[in-house]
């Protein structure tokens, strides 16, 4: 017997006619990163809303067309809430059902974006991302697991991803390095 598949969010409709969604930890349906032309750079779907790759690509094309011109962060497309952020030549999307708390989805998006910008040393653009795909994979794995939000603090995510060279233990760093990382931490906590 195999392990559990990508689990989907369980829904239940109450007979009174008003659908009431079962409280559940499964909040994220998909995380996508597209480039300037709407081509897929990274995509992870956590449930069966778009089961085949063809449908997924059609969906991505659709949301890209609707969102890459405007600058707003949030939209409702195909009955799903889409929160997004763009930077230079990358577009980040987090997809959830229309009944999900939009602020939760925003926190996932912000966490993803902030962790990536730390890992790529503020250079969040396509080339840098492609060179550090393994960091991206690990980061997303640390943020969302099977549709459940695992972590929302970008510092924690970066710490856990622990890319080569980033996570030198404290005792081995020089004094300036320690001060530098302390400054970074303070700055990040003020920004939030």
């Amino acid at each position, binding site marked *: 017997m195999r392990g559990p598949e990508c689990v989907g969010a369980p829904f239940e409709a109450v007979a009174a006619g008003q659908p009431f969604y079962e409280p559940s*930890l499964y909040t994220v349906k998909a995380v996508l990163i597209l480039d300037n032309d709407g081509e897929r750079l990274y995509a992870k779907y956590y449930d069966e809303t778009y089961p085949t790759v063809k449908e997924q690509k059609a969906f991505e094309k659709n949301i890209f067309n609707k969102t890459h011109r*405007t600058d707003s962060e949030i939209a409702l497309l195909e009955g799903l809430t889409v929160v997004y952020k763009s930077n230079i030549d990358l577009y980040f999307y987090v997809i959830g059902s229309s009944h999900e708390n939009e*602020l939760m989805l925003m926190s996932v998006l912000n966490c993803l974006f902030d962790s990536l910008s730390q890992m790529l040393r503020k250079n969040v653009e396509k080339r840098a991302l492609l060179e550090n795909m393994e960091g991206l994979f690990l980061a997303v794995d640390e943020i969302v697991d099977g549709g*459940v*939000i695992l972590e929302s603090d970008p510092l924690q995510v970066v710490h856990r991803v622990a890319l080569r060279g980033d996570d030198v233990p404290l005792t081995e760093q020089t004094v300036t390095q320690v001060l530098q990382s302390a400054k970074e931490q303070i700055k990040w906590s003020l920004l939030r």
Partner: protein
Amino acid sequence: MTRLFQSNDQTLRRMCYLTIKEMANISEDVIIVTSSLTKDMTGKEDVYRGPAIRALCRITDTTMLQAIERYMKQAIVDKVPSVSSSALVSSLHMVRMSYDVVKRWVNEAQEAASSDNIMVQYHALGLLYHLRKNDRLAVSKMLNKFTKSGLKSPFAYCMLIRIASRLLEETEGGHDSPLFDFIESCLRNKHEMVVYEAASAIVHMPNCTARELAPAVSVLQLFCSSPKAALRYAAVRTLNKVAMKHPSAVTACNLDLENLITDSNRSIATLAITTLLKTGSESSVDRLMKQISSFVSEISDEFKVVVVQAISALCQKYPRKHSVMMNFLSNMLRDDGGFEYKRAIVDCIISIIEENPESKETGLAHLCEFIEDCEHTVLATKILHLLGREGPRTPSPSKYIRFIFNRVVLESEAVRAAAVSALAKFGAQNDDLLPSVLVLMQRCMMDSDDEVRDRATFYMNVLQQKQKALNAAYIFNGLSVSVPGLEKSLHQYTLEPSEKPFDMKTVPLATTTVSEQKTELAPVASSKLPEKLAPSRQDIYQEQLAAIPEFQGLGPLFKSSEPVQLTEAETEYVVRCIKHTFASHMVFQFDCTNTLNDQLLQKVVVQMEPSEAYEIVQYVPAASLPYSQPGSCYSLVRLPEDDPTAVSCTFSCTMKYLVRDCDPNTGEPDDDGYDDEYVLEDLEVTVADHIQKVLKPNFAAAWEEVGDEFEKEETFALASVRTLEEAVNNIVSFLGMQPCERSDKVPENKNSHILFLAGVFRGGHDVLVRSRLALADGVTMQVTVRSGEETAVDVILASVG
């Protein structure tokens, strides 16, 4: 794969875990990998432990799970938050697979819930809820504990709010329960996420009064002016939902909403406008329409449909504003847009035309202009059908003929066929146009498509006869029988050769369709499955009854009523009755459910005592009724032949059965049983059970067709009725006939009204009722009844009197 594990490179090892997770669905042989993962899981490197746990749980199955159970329990209560979180989330994924094993870890999860880390709290709470979901008491205890102890995690708070509102809904708890207070206190939490979740939960609760909504609405109002677009969007969307049920509660936010109309995010602007449309007053409608038209081209199709639906609701609220809205809608029709969008607009225009007779000319003109250049066949045919129905009655019908004939020349086959039908209707109703229509029809007979030629020839012949009755039957009021039923009857007829010609009256009638329900305003995800045409309810019953041998000789099923409950909701036995009417019999189908799990009922029969001359012929018992499995028993009753007008009757019903006690756990019955009976409520059979509703789109033509051979008229005084609407509703529900020509709507401030009703009486004869009502110190009613058969007329008049 194992070689890769021997590498010391962190990143490589972590990527291995990811690969394992992805391959979990395809690879068969995981034993090797499992041991390495287990080693990593309990190893010293914290960085590996979390991901190792998650990877391991992806590939594990129930047997292996028990082997690593010990490690999982340790991991859940581990001090390192990433390990604990990973273990909790993985346990959640595995609940689906092996609930029993995971259930044993409840205590560890409970301990983890008191951790300081915000994510661990959230995950522990989620896992505990999923494990205890079915036990309401445990859930409420858990809620009590956590609401009192207070959590730090905003995610956990959101989860708690959802659980609390779910619990409130299930227990239908009043709004003074501590759960509701908890949700309300969350409105003052310092995290916006929690505040929003609380406001959203309060808004979604059914039966919320305006006073309870007020704090939630004020919080949402604050969000409307937030700099974060997501917050504004969330607030506006929730306010939109509030406005659907309590528009007055939202009026306080009107000013903020107007500011949002010019928001750069078009979704927010649309939602703001539709909310304002619901709560705005008549004077602000013009201003709002102008603002919408300025940006409607920039918003997505789904939102355009939302706007159109809001406008449609507004049209019903303010009928005087129809000209402004009609202009706006026709402009939108001219723009580009998808099929759903155009269809929504067309439906909106049609509903305005139907509700508001003053707007008919302009509406039809706009629709004609639309079909000149419409690429959607479905819409074109729908509009042509409407033109055919309404056009002949306008003051100058000839101007529509040009539009329709252009369709015949220019368009596709389906549209051409629809245009021919519409032309025929013009010809049938307007005698001065008849010669020109006949000429046009002649041209249509040369068309290249079969259907168009067939229709043109058919209509030509009918029109050339110049008989009103034929026109009515074939052109105006189409086939009133159900198509699957017709197919079956014809098939039956061809199998048994007979001297008599085929009698349409033996075909069961199509039940009239109910008006479409208002669709929800939030756009829904498009359905992926194609919709299958379900057989109508009547056809299903016909098949079920035909399967019972005792009912073979009854003939076709005429009508089945809606189910009538014969017991209260929470009684031991739940019984409901469906009345099936045949040509000279009635069959009562009793659907019984036994809700006692320590009894088994057998040989269940419902004995009936009629009050009038009905004769009980036979009972067909239900063989056995085990716990909570519904079964049906039937009673066959012959209708009184000597007095055909005695159609209504009351039956007192008693359910008689043989009951055997049985063991509630196994369902094994005892060997002996005893007879018992259970009294049910009385069952009424009224005149409505003998009549099937039939909609006649053109009542006047049908009236002429039936003829006045059996026409009778009587006047009644309804002393207890005060208003015309009440009288109309009473008559419609009592007789069970279909109101035609929208005559069930009484215009305001009128003292007299004419009600047209149509139906088919048992036996297949059309029955038409024209009732003149006058309001003057009580309601007087003059009823004229026409039918093809004298009995039907007598029955109606006798029952009204």
